[in-house]
């Protein structure tokens, strides 16, 4: 009994929502939407630019990788250090003027 009366009470409280009137959307809203869409189109980067940028980045990465690999290859070819590269050649001549 108590349960049903509290439900009824809640229903009554919710009845107040029926009094809320529908309002019209603000007049400026459509204009705002159109300007957002227009601005977005202007700021959007075209696919051509994206493709060009991607191609440029790929070329740079390829060149960089090639240089690294070529450098490694050169170093690998010449692994045993010569005695000159370790001990700088010294001048053994003693000159007494």
């Amino acid at each position, binding site marked *: 009994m108590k349960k049903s009366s509290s*439900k009824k009470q809640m229903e009554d409280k919710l009845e*107040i929502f*029926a009094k809320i009137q529908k309002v019209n959307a603000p007049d400026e809203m459509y204009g705002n939407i159109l300007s957002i869409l227009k601005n977005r189109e202007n700021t959007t980067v075209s696919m051509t630019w994206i493709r060009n940028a991607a191609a440029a980045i790929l070329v740079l990465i390829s060149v960089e990788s090639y240089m690294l690999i070529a450098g490694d290859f050169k170093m690998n070819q010449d692994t045993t250090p010569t005695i000159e590269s370790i001990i700088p050649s010294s001048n053994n001549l003693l000159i007494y003027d």
Partner: protein
Amino acid sequence: MNFQEIYSEHSNLVFNLCLHYLQNKEDAQEVAQDVFIKVYDKIHSFKENSSLKTWIYRITINTSLDFIKAKKRNKRIFLYSALQIDDPNRVIHAVNFDHPGVLMEDKESVEKIFQALNKLPVEQKTVVILLRLEQKTQAETADIMLKTIKAVESLFQRAKKNLNTILNENEGL
């Protein structure tokens, strides 16, 4: 149907639904604009499994809920950083109530119920909004929410019970 026709047919519906979720004119306008931008972007992918109106209802509900979530997150961050308050939930539900559809004499009582409504879980809140504020039938509500009529009925019963508890707690304060 072109975009302008879609807008003129659904703008009031979207704006009023946003108002019911956000209870603030400025926020509702911002969200309603976002809704129409989403509609513009996704209209090509709209499959006619449901009516256009139902589809727009779903977009509006999801966008409003996302906005509320983002606003709560921002408030939480602000409160933690600026005030160092231990329990940010205390003020999270404070909405700047500005619903132009509410009559002056009803404002206080409607605001109280909206405050309680804002504390409900999102699905319960949505059911109350669609059934009582949008005056939709249970079948229409079920269609919009992608649920069975039975599930809608049960959500509504739970919503009423929780609303009653929240309102009684608030009156006791």
